[in-house]
């Protein structure tokens, strides 16, 4: 496809059902809000190409249902994901309380330990807020996550959330290269390095 696409990133959206995962995704990909959006069955999938710091990245985003029953199925989708967006509804404390469960699940099934996590508190346009912004912040800090509050309805913070996440992934070495360019491990065998040069350890004398 596009020549200048740096990489394809797999991103997963998780969280309790009804917190607005699909709406956030729709807002991000199509910049619309659809109050008639059907409840997700299983997993759904969308693609979007974005440009961060001049780097184009193609995002393959998997949206999950969130219901208890579907959950047995979703862990499989954690495989190979580089980023995950964990969403709660700021007007429903129970969705915030369930975050721990989601993290545990993430840790259990995620195949890599350096996955980038972002916490999103959604529906800030609504009146009846139950979860304070500071609580979200605290939770995110505790679990080394990115954090933002957003509204899929009014568009607040949505674009920003995805961009931050992608930027962070690109900054994480070894996370997005299809083959990590690790330098190899330096062994304590110092001598090897010197042998090639003009003069090694022994050669000056014996």
């Amino acid at each position, binding site marked *: 496809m596009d020549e200048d696409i740096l990489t394809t990133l797999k991103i997963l959206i998780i969280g309790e059902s009804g917190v607005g995962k699909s709406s956030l995704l729709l807002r991000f990909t199509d910049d619309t809000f659809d109050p*008639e959006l059907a409840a997700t069955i299983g997993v*759904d*999938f969308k693609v979007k190409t974005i440009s961060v710091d001049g780097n184009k990245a193609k995002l393959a985003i998997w949206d999950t249902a969130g219901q208890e029953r579907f959950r047995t199925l979703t862990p499989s989708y954690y*495989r190979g994901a580089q980023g995950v967006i964990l969403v709660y509804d700021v007007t*429903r404390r129970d969705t915030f309380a369930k975050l721990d469960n989601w993290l545990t699940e993430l840790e259990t099934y995620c195949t890599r330990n350096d996955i980038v996590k972002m916490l999103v508190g959604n529906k800030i346009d609504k009146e009846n807020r139950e979860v304070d912004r500071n609580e979200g912040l605290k939770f995110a800090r505790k679990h080394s996550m990115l954090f933002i509050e957003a509204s899929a309805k009014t568009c607040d913070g949505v674009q920003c959330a995805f961009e931050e996440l992608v930027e962070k992934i690109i900054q994480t070495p070894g996370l997005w290269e299809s*083959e990590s360019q690790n330098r190899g*491990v330096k062994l*304590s065998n110092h001598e090897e390095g010197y042998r090639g040069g003009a003069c090694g350890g022994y050669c000056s004398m014996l």
Partner: protein
Amino acid sequence: MAADSEPESEVFEITDFTTASEWERFISRVEEVLNDWKLIGISSGKPLGKGVYTTETWEEKSDEISFADFRFSVTHHYLVQESSEKDSKEEIVEDALPVAMQDLLCMNNDFPPRAHCLVRWYGLREFVVIAPAANNDAVLSESKCNLLLSSVSIALGNTGCQVPLFVQIHHQWRKMYVGECQGPGVRTDFEMVHLRKVPSQYTHVSGLLDIFKSKIGCPLTPLPPINISIRLTYVLQDWQQYFWPQQPPDIDALVGGEVGGLEFGKLPFGACEDPISELHLATTWPHLTEGIIVDNDVYSDLDPLQAPQWSVRVRKADNPQCLLSDFVTEFFKLCRRKESTDEILGKSAFEEEGKEVADISHALSKLTEPAPVPIHKLSVTNMVHTAKKKIRKHRGVDESPLNNEVLNTILLYLFPDAADKSADGSEARTSTSTGSLPPPDSEDYNIYIQFKSAPSDSLTYKLALCLCMINFYHGGVKGVAHLWQEFVLEMRYRWENNFFVPGLASGAPDLRCCLLHQKLQMLNCCIERKKARDEGKKANSFDRSSGDPGKTDLLGREFHKDSDKEKGEVGKSWDSWSDSEEEFFECLSDTEELKANGQENVKKGVAKESSKETLALKPEGRLHQHGNLTLLHSGEPLYVPVTQEPAPMTEDLLEEQSEVLAKLGTSAEGAHLRARMQSACLLSDMESFKAANPGCCLEDFVRWYSPRDYIEEEMVDEKGNVVIKGELSARMKIPSNMWVEAWETAKPIPARRQRRLFDDTREAEKVLHYFAGQKPADLARHLLPCVLHAAVLKVKEEESLEDITSVKRIIKQIITHSSKVLRFPNPEDKKLEEIIAQIMSVEATIARARSLKAKFGIEKCDEEEERKDLENFVNSFLEQPEVPVIGAGRGPAGTIIHKLFMNAQRVATMLPFDEELKRSGSSDEKRLSSGSVADFPSPAGREVILRMTIPRPAPYSKPLPQRMYSVFTKDDFRLAGAFSSDTTFF
């Protein structure tokens, strides 16, 4: 100088050497490079601390320039001092000597264990070398050498660069350099003599002092004292009374489950040859003054035993043959084999499967006749069943790669349940003689997550180890193919006979493990479902009379057991794996109902459906009550139904599935289709729910399944009472959304009578087919992570016996490195080789530590403290190029070293005469004959550094540093002088 006059052809050919333009161009290129590297101007720096040449890092920068068409490389070598980098910007003294001249006199870094030869000879911290760029090129004639040197001189003068600049002349191996360093009004010339044979007057200190003095031509009398540093190096090659203990295992011996003393499931370890070849003892007199010692052609005070400093280095054997490394390397080579199993074993490997299967099922149908007798025992003789027979058929009797005994041993090791009396599969995970495996949940145990291998007590891991050993000892790739074939047949046997595969964690495939492990787990999942189904049928037919209304199996699933079933069905149950299409989740007894609810029923439409509703007044498949929720219409308690378990998935299936889902695209239709494809599970759950809750509605279902989609609000009714009113969420109320659609389609059918969501028969066959198609190379790739994992555990285990800090650190690095490489699909061979090389180096290091410990007799040392010191001393060899001996010749380590040399000498003196005769000619031998000749051989190398500060060339010139380094060995003699002179006043 270049006093040597070998008749050699000139390589440095320039058409017109004196062409001003070429020469000038060269000089300006040199200046340019010096400028680029910012080497212009005053070089400053503090005197260097002790040993910094070893502790800090050396770096170099290179560029290329040419003289006419002759290419030179220019290289800047310099010490990077991290510690003092920040405060190095100290005050610049205008007239100070260039730092290089100060370094000539500094005694803190004499005889560095590891450094560029110019550092060793002149003590410099920084310098630039111009050398022919091509390896075989050389500057040979004296006139050309002079021309280069004058270019250097001009470039230094023009730029004001104070870093010494050297030119390499003659052939590279001779390491001949001439150079110059300039400062304000001062200059140092670096000169060198290199000879094959040492003139006899230079073999001792007094002769060297003479030449130094005459070289300086100092006008002062008396001469200020000359500072002398001496190092004599002795080499020990003959480790007396010490034999490398380890022999390569005897591969032909197979005794009681062991091959050459090696059990299956264990990896070998250690070097087959002594990984330490030589010991070099350096005895140093760091600070002497002329007149304190006597060392001339008739007498010497330099007794190594009396030297104030001793240090030792060891020479390591290059690539000693190590067992673990060989094992792993050979296994890795398997990955590159091209042959298929069939090609290796002769065609047919899996060909006659059909026939064999028929045989087995025939045997089984016989077994089923005396009904309740299951096959409760697998015997090994039974196991070594078919592959071998087939190979025999096709390749002649004696040619099967693995003999019976080996094969039996391996199969027993892999499938211990075959020998257990109580082997019904449920206890298959009991570990038999797993040796020193890390306990579950320990850090070591969880290494499999990093390696994406398999737990160290798993069948997969054991299989990897067996294949590794077979590859090495039992017929290589043929043996591997043979064992694999047996293994696959065993898998089929277990599937067909409902025996669990042992050594696997139960439950869905663990995606953190290698694919092969996942596939084995998948097979177990299939077996579990099939077994439950078959046993359900059986139990039902046998228990019918007891009237047991229902029973819950291990998985909390319900067996339904009331009904009338014709006897005829029982026998058929054994064949249940063969017809997948009409299979039901837990198809049990209700044949009538089963038929009624079967697929054809769907087509019959609503008329029948409604009659069914009434029929199904009796609730079925309840798991438990859901809190105290009640159904909205009937007010009955709401029950959570028994549901079908989700299909277990291996990572390749998963990939396939998500690929299919992704391919549907992002259009509305695509999304709809995607949801539809995944709605089977939702539909099945709805049907189970309906069966468990007669008279329920969608709202009831949603309250259980997706509670946030049922919105309850407090309302005040017309009478003024507060009532809670609930309704479906907006998105659930969208007309004909998929939830509503599914709800309308769903019929009240309990899970056990629904069509299977997971077709175990098909999946099992897929797994078995996949197995059969694996070439030895595929297998090796699958299992390499397990082998690496095992190798790392082995290395860890061996290290813990020796306790070597550096090795601990490297092992940690290997694990992190591996986790980066192995968790990606299809890691590159180059990266895998890197990991293997790291493991090899660790094994060699541990072997070296053992060799050294044995040589220094640490085991024999009784005194606790002394032993600790010795241990530290020995371990230092693994990390440092040169280790100081505390207490020199008188310390505990020194005493041992002394003894080692003495023993070697004793043997050497008993050698035939010719060796002795040759040596006795040297003056050295003669002189020392009065001293400790019996204890030490003549030194393999003598290094002497002479230093002083005197005015030169005239008595009223500025006093400047002078230095001469000399080294002679058996067939090499070198003098490297740095002579400074005042260029302003003379």
